[in-house]
């Protein structure tokens, strides 16, 4: 996955075939069917608004900020988040909130306040195209190609995880699940383009919120409220030899041995809080594309900032179920199905809680919410893929003089082809799980250093095309070398690292991953600076206007009411995130 979240969902349903079966009734099927009908219907209604390729790929740059903001987090609210964060909540407790209050929020504020003016203002149609304007063709090509491969792969993994999960908890046919989910996504994107994807993400957002909230409330009520949960987690963490670790976010980050993540505060703050999350939220076209669909610069800048508000509260919906699950197991009367090695299968937290607390009716809603999260993950990737392929590969290298109508056709054909490749990836994931792990690892190498060239590109005008391109290669090579020389304790050399000879050891894979990101970023940053200084600038100041901070006219927010100014919203959001960190310290 081209995301920085820690859990592999490829094995979401593995090992649970006989342990957890949800029994659907007619009403549940009715709810599911109604949802599918609306999802397709939205695309169908929107088809008449598609007149140009800008409408298809960029929603005609016409959407209000609140719609883009919900699309911004909706596209990210894939299964990896819903299933994966619940699993992490069970494995690590409140500390999982670092992925939100340290990881996502500061990066979302940074992209809204500082970076969006360059993305939106430069009139680049995609993130790779920004790299072309700012640096050169080869840097764009590197980013476009790696991004295109990653998106179809991620979409395939989502599809595979959905089919595997439905097969194991509902007994549905794997092939049928793949066919139905891909055809529905295909229809609503081909007919309605990016607007349809974003509208459906907004719908999916509310469905996930309203579908998971009752689950959390029932779980909380069952365990005796927040105090009851804390009491059970105290007992659980003591039994794991790390007393208190599940109910505090920072208090046990002083040493890698004191918390189940196996990480200390510096690696966490730098690796996750800075390199990985800024790398994802500030450079990944999947999310940036949603903000670039906004109707004007103000709306584009407010998109990530408004998105940060619900994002900050998501731990209630996605992490709390995991904490409740281990608390309820500790209390008795609730069980997680075992995985193949006999340990609880944490990926089954949400399905197991659905089975426990939702009667038919609400069960249909919960299941629809789960389906919505998988489909939003797939659609987000597919829309980003069709745009990058059409603009940055097809129009740039294959047919420069393509007409607008031709580009739209290419976009539609690319959507079909992208989904077909995703289906192939899903079957490949089913067949060869190791290859998928390997690909995820390679994407990690490529993504880790990415933020360094954006940071230098936007805020240091001396950065050159050669500097950025070779800096990226150095960063990727640093990540590979780091991985090859390090290993999590207790793991065998191979896909987990140490393939060049393990010289340094980490308490967990997560710690190794955070530190790898820090090294990759450092390598790329230093490499880009050194090579830029050694090479001649390849762009004039005139060409860099609107692309670099020092050469771009500052945006004045004088006409905007104070509460709608990006800087004000950003400060309020950051302050709220700090307060949350302190409350759950």
């Amino acid at each position, binding site marked *: 996955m081209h995301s920085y979240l820690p859990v592999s969902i490829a094995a979401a349903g593995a090992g649970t075939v006989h342990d957890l079966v949800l029994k659907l009734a007619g009403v549940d099927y009715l709810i599911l069917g109604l949802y599918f009908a609306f999802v397709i219907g939205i695309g169908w209604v929107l088809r008449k608004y598609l007149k140009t390729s800008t409408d298809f790929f960029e929603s005609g740059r016409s959407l209000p900020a609140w719609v883009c903001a919900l699309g911004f987090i909706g596209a990210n609210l894939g299964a990896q988040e819903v299933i994966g964060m619940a699993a992490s909540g069970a494995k690590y407790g409140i500390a999982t909130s670092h992925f939100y209050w340290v990881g996502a929020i500061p990066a979302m504020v940074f992209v809204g306040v500082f970076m969006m003016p360059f993305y939106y203002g430069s009139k680049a149609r995609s993130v790779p195209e920004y790299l072309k304007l700012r640096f050169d063709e080869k840097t764009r090509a590197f980013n476009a190609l790696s991004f295109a491969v990653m998106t179809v792969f991620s979409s395939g993994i989502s599809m595979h995880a959905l089919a595997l999960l439905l097969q194991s908890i509902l007994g549905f046919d794997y092939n049928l699940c793949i066919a139905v989910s891909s055809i529905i996504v295909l229809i609503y994107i081909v007919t309605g383009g990016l607007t349809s994807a974003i509208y459906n993400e907004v719908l999916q957002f509310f469905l996930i919120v*309203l579908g998971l909230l009752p689950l959390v409330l*029932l779980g909380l009520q*069952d365990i005796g409220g927040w105090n009851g949960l804390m009491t059970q987690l105290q007992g659980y963490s003591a039994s794991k030899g790390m007393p208190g670790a599940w109910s505090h976010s920072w208090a046990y980050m002083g040493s890698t041995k004191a918390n189940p993540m196996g990480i200390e505060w510096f690696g966490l703050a730098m690796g996750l809080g800075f390199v990985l999350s800024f790398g994802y939220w500030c450079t990944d076209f999947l999310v940036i594309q949603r903000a670039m669909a906004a109707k004007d610069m103000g709306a584009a800048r407010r998109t990530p900032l408004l998105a940060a508000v619900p994002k900050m509260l998501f731990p209630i919906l996605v992490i709390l179920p995991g904490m409740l699950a281990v608390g309820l197991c500790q209390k008795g009367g609730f069980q997680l199905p075992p995985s193949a090695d006999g340990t609880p299968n944490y990926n089954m937290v949400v399905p197991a809680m659905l089975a426990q607390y*939702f*009667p*038919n009716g609400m069960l249909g809603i919960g299941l629809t919410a789960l389906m919505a999260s998988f489909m939003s993950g797939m659609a987000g990737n597919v829309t980003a893929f069709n745009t990058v392929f059409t603009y940055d590969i097809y129009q740039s290298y294959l047919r420069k003089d393509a007409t607008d109508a031709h580009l739209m056709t290419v976009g539609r054909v690319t959507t079909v082809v992208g989904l077909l490749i995703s289906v192939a990836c899903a079957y490949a994931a089913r067949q060869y799980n190791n290859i998928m792990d390997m690909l995820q690892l390679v994407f990690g190498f490529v993504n880790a250093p990415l933020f360094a060239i954006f940071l230098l590109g936007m805020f240091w005008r001396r950065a050159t095309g050669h500097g950025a391109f070779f800096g990226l290669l150095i960063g990727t090579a640093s990540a590979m070398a780091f991985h090859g020389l390090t290993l999590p304790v207790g793991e065998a050399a191979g896909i987990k690292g140490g393939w060049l000879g393990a010289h340094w050891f980490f308490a967990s894979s997560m710690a190794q991953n955070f530190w790898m990101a820090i090294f990759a970023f450092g390598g790329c940053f230093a490499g880009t600076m050194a090579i830029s200084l050694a090479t001649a600038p390849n762009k004039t100041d005139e060409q860099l206007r609107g692309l670099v901070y020092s050469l771009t006219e500052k945006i004045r927010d004088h006409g905007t009411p104070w509460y709608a100014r990006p800087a004000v919203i950003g400060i309020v959001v950051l302050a709220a995130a700090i307060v949350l960190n302190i409350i759950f310290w």
Partner: protein
Amino acid sequence: MHLDVRIPMGLLFLLLGLILVGYGLVSDPAIYVRHSLGQNVNLTWGGIFTAFGAGLLLFARRGRKAE
């Protein structure tokens, strides 16, 4: 001018809410004892879904009038 996203969303939540309320009224109370701590969650959350859907439709209508 695009389709106002609040219209399809409002309609969907309204319909889902009504289905839940309807099912909550006719379903066997034993399923709530077995699952949802004795509470008829279909009725409660069906009501919330219905109100949310109706609210969205209302806002969409007001938005259109304002334009």
